[in-house]
């Protein structure tokens, strides 16, 4: 994770466009100023960041499904459940699945685990719109490359 750049995802482990699923890994940093406030003596990942990590995981899946034609923007969070604490240094494995592909929007469900232990889950809705600025597309391409987005998965 690069929390200062709001990059919550480190690596795409598996992308299955036919099954509409993705698995990613996210390494929680051992130290960060966030943990100084959240909380002193008991550092844990904030629930909003865990939710964002699930949203970014879903986002990469949606980018793959639309072949980077549409940028997904988080619009709705439902049933967000923080089921256990996530501590500095832990490795999150996040799975996301597309539940529905609508016209201009999509709904996913996501779960994050540390080892086998389920830490959080949520149902997420995204608006999908053409990239509003070419520089955003360039940026997403660069991040895709950095996190190992399997471009071959998009070839028919």
């Amino acid at each position, binding site marked *: 994770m690069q929390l200062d750049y709001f990059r919550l995802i480190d690596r795409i482990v598996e992308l299955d466009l036919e099954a509409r699923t993705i698995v990613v890994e996210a390494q929680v940093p051992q130290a960060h100023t966030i943990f100084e406030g959240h909380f002193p003596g008991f550092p844990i990942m904030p629930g909003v960041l865990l939710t964002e990590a699930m949203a970014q995981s879903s986002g990469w899946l949606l980018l793959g499904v639309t072949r980077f034609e549409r940028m997904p923007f988080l619009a*709705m969070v439902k049933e967000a459940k923080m089921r256990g604490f996530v501590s500095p240094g832990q490795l999150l494995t996040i799975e996301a699945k597309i539940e529905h*592909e*609508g*016209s*201009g*929007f999509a709904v996913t469900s996501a779960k994050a685990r540390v080892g086998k232990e389920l830490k959080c889950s949520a149902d997420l809705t995204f608006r999908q719109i053409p990239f509003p600025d070419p520089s955003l597309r360039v940026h997403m391409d660069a991040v895709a490359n950095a996190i190992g987005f399997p471009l071959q998965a998009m070839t028919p």
Partner: protein
Amino acid sequence: MSSTFDQIATIIAETCDIPRDTITPESHAIDDLGIDSLDFLDIAFAIDKAFGIKMPLEKWTQEVNDGKATTEQYFVLKNLAARIDELVAAKSAGA
């Protein structure tokens, strides 16, 4: 079996917390019921699931923006129900 209008009225009532008895076939989803675009996404999701269709919201919005259609054609509920019936029929014909 309830009508298409009854089903979408129930979906709108439950999704947007609007009293069911205030929703009529003449209600305009936006102008009368005050449903915003985000709530409409939720409604579209529920309608898509309930009827097994994909409402072409982007196409409808484009038609309204281009002046080729009015919001009444898609968002007055009796008209929305008719559009849904057409989509369901088209899907059945293609199945």
